[in-house]
C-alpha cells in the first residue's frame, strides 16, 4: 500500500470490498476513522525475515482429546 493517504474513492472501494453498504453519515465516520488507522498501519510495517512469526500460532497440544478444544 502506498504511504499516501487513501482517498475517499479508495476507501469507498475498500468498504465495498468488505461488503459494507454505508449511509452517508456512517461513510463519513469511516473515512475519518480510517485516516487514523492508516497512520498506525504504516507505522507497523517494517522489513521482516521470512521466519518472523506472528504472536498467535497454532498450538496443537491444545486440541488433544483430553485438552478441551474438541
Amino acid at each position, binding site marked *: *500500500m502506498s504511504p499516501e493517504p487513501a482517498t475517499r474513492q479508495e*476507501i469507498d472501494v*475498500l*468498504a465495498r470490498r*468488505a*461488503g*459494507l*453498504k*454505508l449511509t452517508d453519515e*456512517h461513510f463519513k*465516520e*469511516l473515512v*475519518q*476513522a*480510517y485516516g*487514523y*488507522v492508516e497512520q*498506525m*498501519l504504516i*507505522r*507497523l*510495517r*517494517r522489513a*521482516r525475515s521470512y521466519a*518472523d*512469526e*506472528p*504472536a*498467535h500460532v497454532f498450538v496443537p497440544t*491444545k486440541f488433544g482429546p483430553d*485438552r*478441551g*478444544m474438541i
Partner: protein
Amino acid sequence: MTATELHFITVAEAARRIARRELSPVELTEAYLQRIGAFDDQLHSFVTLTADLARWQAQSAEAQILRDGPRSPLHGVPYCLKDIVETAGIRTTGQSKLLAGHIPAEDAVVASKLRDAGGILLGKTATWEFAHGGPSWDVLFPPARNPWNTAHHPAGSSSGSGAAVAAGFAPATIGSDTGGSIRGPAAACGIAGLKPTYGLVSRRGVLPNCFSHDHVGPLAWTSEDVAIMLSIVAGHDPHDPGSADVPARDYAAGIDAPIAGTEIGVPWRWLEEEAPCTPETRAGLNAALAVFRDLGATIRGVEPPPMQLFNDAKKIIAIAELYSIHEKDLKTRPELFGASLRYRIIAGGLVRAEDYVQAMRVRRDLASAMQQIFTTIDLMMLPTGEPAGKLEPVPHYTLFTDPSYTTAFNVSGNPALSVCSGYAANGMPQSLQIAGRLFEDATVLRAGHAYEMATSWRDRRPALSTTRQAAVA
C-alpha cells in the same frame, strides 16, 4: 457494626468476621442493597440489581456457615460483575442495544467460580459498550459516574465496577481489561484493580472485546482483597484457547512478606518524552517511589520499546478482531451500535489480513522485549493515568490518538496492578501502576499491599449525600 462500617468493610475483614460468626451475610447484604438503593441513582454503577437472588444466596450462605463454617473467604460476602460476564438467567447486555434482551443460559467460568465459592451476587455493573466504546449516551444505559465527584467519569470500560467498589456498594467485583479497562477505573475511583497475566483467568462466557488481548480480573478496595478474589477465579480452563495451564495458587498467602531488595524499573522516557505526565502526577509517582525506597527497594530507569508501538499494534489487532465479531450487526443494523463503538471498529473491516499479521509480528517483538526487561528488574512502576476528568463526550478518534500507560502490558501479557497513590489537589484519586513478570501476579500484589500498608490512602472514602450530590468542578 455501624452501617458505614458494613459498607466499607474489606473482603478480608468480612471473611474473618463471618468465620468467627460475628458478621451475618444477611445483614451485610442488606446493608449494601440499602446503600445501592439510596445512592446509585447518582452513580448509575449498576445496570441490573439482583436483590432477590442476593437475599436468597445470603440466607443460604448464612445457614451453611452456621452449620459447617465458610468454604472460602468469599462465602457470604457480596460482589458484583461487569455486565459483559454472562450469568445464567440474568440479563447480560454489554451496555448495548444489540443485547438488550440477552439472557444467557449458562454462567461464565468466573461467575460460576464465584457462585461456587459462596459469594453473594448483588448485580451487574455498567460498562462501555462491549467493553470498548465510550463513554456513550446513545447506548442501553447511561454512563456511570465517579463517586469522588459525580461530575467526573470513572474511566472505562469497567466503569460501574470501579464506581461501585469506591462508593461502598460492594467490596469487590470482576472486570475485564483489554487495554486498561480494569486499571483505568481502579485508578479513577481510587481502588485496586489487577489485570492478571494473560491466560491466568478464564474468559469463557465473557463477551469478547478483542480475543488476543482480553483479560478478566478483580477490582477491590485493597490489593489483599484483589488477591483473595484472584485466588478464586484463577485457574486453567481447557475450553478457553488462551488459558494458561499453570497450577492454581493462593495469591493472598504471603502477601505480608517484606519487599526489601525488590528491584523496580521506571520507564522514564515514556513519562517524560513520549507521553509526559502532568507535574502533579509526576510528583505523585516520585512520592510513591520514595515509599518503596523506604521499604528497601531499589529503583532505576528502564527502556522498553516506544509506547506508541504497543498502542499501534494493539489497536490494529483490536479493531480487526472487533470487526470480525460484530461484522454481521455492522452490516445489518449499524444504527443499534453507539456512535463511539461503531466509529472505533468499522474501519476494522478495511484492515487487510497482511496488516493484521504484521501487527501480530510487532506484538511478538514487543512482548519479547518486555520480558527481556523483566529479566533485569522485578517490577515496573509508572502512573496508571492522570486523575479522572469531567464526564463528557470525547471525540471518537481519541481512541486512536491518545497515549495509554496501560496498554503495553496487555500487549506483553504481564500482570499489572493499579493502586491508589494519593489525591490530586481537586480531590480526585491518583494512581500507581505496578507491573511484574509473567505469572508473578503474587509479587505484584505483594508490592501493592506493602504500599497500601505504608501509606494512609486507604483511610479515605468518597462522601455521598442523600440529597442529590451537586456536580461540582
